[in-house]
């Protein structure tokens, strides 16, 4: 079921939908992309950041005099310098504050202390060595499980009234209903599981070029930003510069995956330095800085419970979570959801009750938490429920595929309101699981597994079924810093019928320039080549909150459709004048306004656009252009889903896991460009292999980061990733104007539990019921020996 055939068949009529080649590729295969570090302005200076070697220490003094004396150094900024300008602290995306440059204490290893500006990047690095910082070390809080102890050191003594490391408590669902279900259940299974801290690690690190024109008062930033409009508003609020004098250009981004959503101290340092020196300033972090200081992902310590009848009917779920947010609460998510969308841990099953409680804590580690294609914590939620379902299957002696099939929501139950309040829009879950089992040849795999076990070979078959909630969000209850999560689209139709679409979302490789052109072309009877997509420049695009949480197609894609339909409505009025008919006499058919009953007569967008701009006399109220703009406020989220099966071979002697096959059936609603959709799934499956088997950002007891380079933070290569076997079902979203649901994070969300379930399945003969990620050879070996799995020793 690979390729595009079955998808195309379900999506007719296609028009410009389909696997058309990407517009972006022409520049990238020639090495002509423009990434932030490719920007070079006349007289540009280079910034570098001095970072704390300690996780927790009071700063006694910072002496930059020797650095300032360096012949190539133009300026040095310290926390005290920024404090004098009111810039030492900045708001985070979660309503907390974060130090731009430390003034009082350092709170994690890698925290920003000083910013050197020099004539070249080497000199800037040299000068960092010349800054003398005197520290008074403090005991750090590293293990989140001890953060709330009475004698735990206080991380955030800067916050008035903060007496401990507690950030928030948050609950969802009905506790008493869940408790009742659990007390009456025949079987309950529970497990402690850790979703380890990881990092999105886009191949391009974060960076910025800042230029300030003192005469016009204009600040221009070329910046690695997934949310340029939100960043512009934030910079205006922080610096006091008027928002209309700030322009953010987010050029080509070398991946993002959530890493480029927050505003980082380096960006503000570059702005301050550009303002002070009057010269353009470039700051690009190195890989260690990226891994050690920018937003991490996950770090959820979870206790999950599942209740069922003896014959395998799942009744309820409970979860208790300790969320490690690091030193500053800087998660990027809708403000009213401090645990993101974790409460969709109800998964894909027909439950009677569910309840979860999440407590967030500060520790002396880098800030973040929501990143890495997690759909606002749905990664953690799916992992929890899918591990519990597998553990329940093992306890009941029911095949995990069969147990899922018995409990999946049925097509007739949609729209379905889950016990924690989400309204799932549409789905046909049994069909997706059946397709995955079919592609896998599931029964044959189970026979092979039994045969191999008889020969002492350990093969695993792991299943996961996931439901996502993406496309945040209805602006009424989803906002970031008070900015409602709506997104805009602006269409300009030139007289020759060529179209420019401006969107507020920002591609990081997802192919928006192609997909969005297809969307508009489909609506207007044009070809994708007739549509130029502009994004990533706040001067040229409408306001919106940007790309993360798989929201581009669900939100801005819908905006593009609605704008195109407005263009069509305008065109109808002009066409009526052209044809000397009433608008009611026209119908939109096969890409043109045609005369009802006489479809040979009509006009397409290009002819109508020329007429609109001509001297044709138009009735009152009909303007002489076809341009349109829309701000789309989604009525609900969209709910992509899928069934994944991972086949592994595990060597119990070495603990090595080899992923043999990965089957993925995804339903993201209508597929605009199936080639791009499948590419997104490929990426997410690799993420799942990485998360499950290799990737973790661990710390030693002093808070030293043990994952600060690609030698320690292992990412999957072509040798670890098998050739994926994909399938597709198409269940359109009923409320999205073209039925699309979003795909960017589905596989990252859905795949880790499939890999872990597969490894645990392989290890079942050893009595292993659960082992935490990353399942490196060392940790698999420990699990087989019955020893605790250790993220910090994963590589040893």
């Amino acid at each position, binding site marked *: 079921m690979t390729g595009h055939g079955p998808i195309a068949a379900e999506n007719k009529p296609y028009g410009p939908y389909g696997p058309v080649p990407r517009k972006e590729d022409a520049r990238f295969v020639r090495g002509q992309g423009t990434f932030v570090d490719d920007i070079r302005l006349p007289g540009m200076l280079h910034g570098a950041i001095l970072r704390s070697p300690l996780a927790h220490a009071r700063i006694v003094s910072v002496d930059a005099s020797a650095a300032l004396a360096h012949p190539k150094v133009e300026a040095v900024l310290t926390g005290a310098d920024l404090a004098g300008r009111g810039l030492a602290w900045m708001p985070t995306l979660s309503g907390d504050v974060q130090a731009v440059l430390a003034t009082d204490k350092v709170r994690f290893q890698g925290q920003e202390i000083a910013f050197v500006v020099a004539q070249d990047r080497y000199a800037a690095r040299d000068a960092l060595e010349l800054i003398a910082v005197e520290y008074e070390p403090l005991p750090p809080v590293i293990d989140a499980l001890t953060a709330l102890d009475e004698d735990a050191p206080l991380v955030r003594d800067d916050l008035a009234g903060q007496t401990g490391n507690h950030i928030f408590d948050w609950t969802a669902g009905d506790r008493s209903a869940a408790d009742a279900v659990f007390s009456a259940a025949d079987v309950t299974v529970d497990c402690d599981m850790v979703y380890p801290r990881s990092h999105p690690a886009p191949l*391009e690190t974060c960076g910025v070029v800042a230029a300030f024109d003192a005469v016009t008062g204009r600040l221009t930033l070329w910046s690695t930003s997934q949310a340029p409009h939100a960043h512009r508003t934030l910079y205006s609020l922080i610096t006091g510069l008027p928002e209309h004098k700030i322009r953010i250009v987010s050029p080509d981004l070398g991946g993002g*995956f959530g890493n480029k959503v927050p505003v980082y101290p380096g960006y503000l340092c570059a702005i301050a330095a550009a303002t002070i020196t009057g010269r353009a300033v470039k700051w690009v972090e190195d890989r260690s800085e990226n891994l050690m200081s920018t937003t991490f992902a996950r770090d959820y310590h979870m206790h999950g419970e599942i209740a069922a009848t003896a014959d395998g009917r799942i009744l309820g779920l409970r979860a208790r979570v300790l969320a490690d947010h690091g030193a500053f609460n800087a998660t990027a998510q809708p403000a009213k959801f401090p645990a993101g969308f974790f409460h969709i841990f109800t998964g894909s099953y027909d439950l009677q009750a569910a309840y979860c409680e999440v407590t967030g804590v500060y520790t002396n580690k880098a800030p973040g938490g929501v990143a890495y294609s997690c759909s606002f914590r749905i990664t953690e939620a799916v992992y929890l429920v899918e591990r519990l379902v597998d553990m329940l299957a093992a306890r009941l002696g029911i095949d995990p595929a069969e147990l899922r099939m018995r409990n999946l929501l049925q097509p007739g139950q949609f729209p379905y309101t889950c016990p924690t309040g989400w309204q799932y829009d549409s789905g046909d879950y049994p069909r997706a699981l059946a397709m995955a089992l079919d592609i896998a040849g599931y029964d044959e795999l189970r026979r092979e597994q039994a045969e191999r076990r008889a020969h002492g070979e350990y093969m695993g078959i792991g299943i996961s079924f996931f439901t996502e909630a993406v496309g945040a969000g209805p602006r009424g209850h989803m906002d970031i810093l008070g900015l409602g999560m709506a997104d805009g689209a602006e269409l300009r139709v030139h007289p020759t019928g060529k179209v420019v679409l401006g969107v507020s979302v920002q591609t990081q490789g997802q192919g928006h320039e192609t997909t969005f052109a297809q969307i508009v072309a489909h609506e207007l009877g044009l070809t994708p080549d007739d549509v130029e997509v502009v994004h990533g420049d706040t001067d040229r695009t409408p306001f919106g909150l940007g790309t993360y949480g798989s929201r581009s197609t669900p939100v801005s894609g819908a905006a593009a459709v609605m704008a195109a339909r407005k263009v069509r409505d305008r065109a109808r009025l002009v066409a009526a004048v052209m044809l000397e008919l009433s608008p009611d006499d026209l119908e939109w058919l096969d890409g043109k306004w045609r005369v009802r009953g006489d479809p040979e007569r009509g006009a397409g967008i290009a002819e109508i656009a020329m007429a609109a701009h001509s001297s044709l006399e138009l009735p009152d109220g009909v303007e002489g252009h076809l341009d349109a703009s829309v701000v789309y406020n989604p009525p609900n989220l969209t709910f992509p889903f899928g069934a994944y099966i991972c086949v592994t071979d595990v060597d119990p002697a070495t603990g090595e896991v080899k992923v043999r096959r990965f089957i993925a059936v995804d339903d993201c609603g209508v597929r605009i460009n199936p080639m*791009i959709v499948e590419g997104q799934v490929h*990426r997410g499956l690799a993420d799942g292999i990485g998360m499950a088997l290799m990737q973790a950002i661990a710390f030693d007891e002093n808070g030293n980061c043990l994952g600060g380079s690609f030698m320690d933070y292992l990412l999957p*290569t072509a040798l670890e*990733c098998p050739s994926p076997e994909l399938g597709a079902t198409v269940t359109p979203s009923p409320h999205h104007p073209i039925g699309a649901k979003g795909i960017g994070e589905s596989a990252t969300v859905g795949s880790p539990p499939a890999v872990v379930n597969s490894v645990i399945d392989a290890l079942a003969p050893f009595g292993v019921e659960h082992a935490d990620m990353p399942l490196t050879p060392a940790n698999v070996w420990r699990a087989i020996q019955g020893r605790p799995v250790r993220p910090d020793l994963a590589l040893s």
Partner: protein
Amino acid sequence: MKVTVTVNGREYVRDVEPRLLLIHLLRDELGLTGSHWGCDTSNCGACVVWLDETPVKSCTVLAVMADGRRVTTVEGLGSGDSLDPVQRGFAECHGLQCGFCTPGMMLTARWLLDHNPDPSAAEVREAISGQICRCTGYENIVKAVLWAAKNGGQG
């Protein structure tokens, strides 16, 4: 130190610090920004270029080590307006998403096909295993290289 390097057939003479990395010579001094920098530790391969006939990670090669030698970057793939089959393969097979690893991947692929015009998928995977792509899961990169082998092979 004075270095003379021939990059994509054109000779450049520059006075550089002995510690200057080849990737920075290419990007910052010569303005050839098609090669990217990604990790500092030779793990990611975003900076892969050819030194004479061999792919190297230019973040771990000093510019002075390229003195008197030839360097080929993505800007030197293909000739004039015509793309190398590897470049066409990447576009044809959706072998790239963000485009950041692509130049390095393509240079390794070109080297592979010069030495093994008809590689298996496993041989392609082995050849690119010292490089990281965060977007594609590698599947379509493998397809792209195999496509190039079938459609033009030698550049």
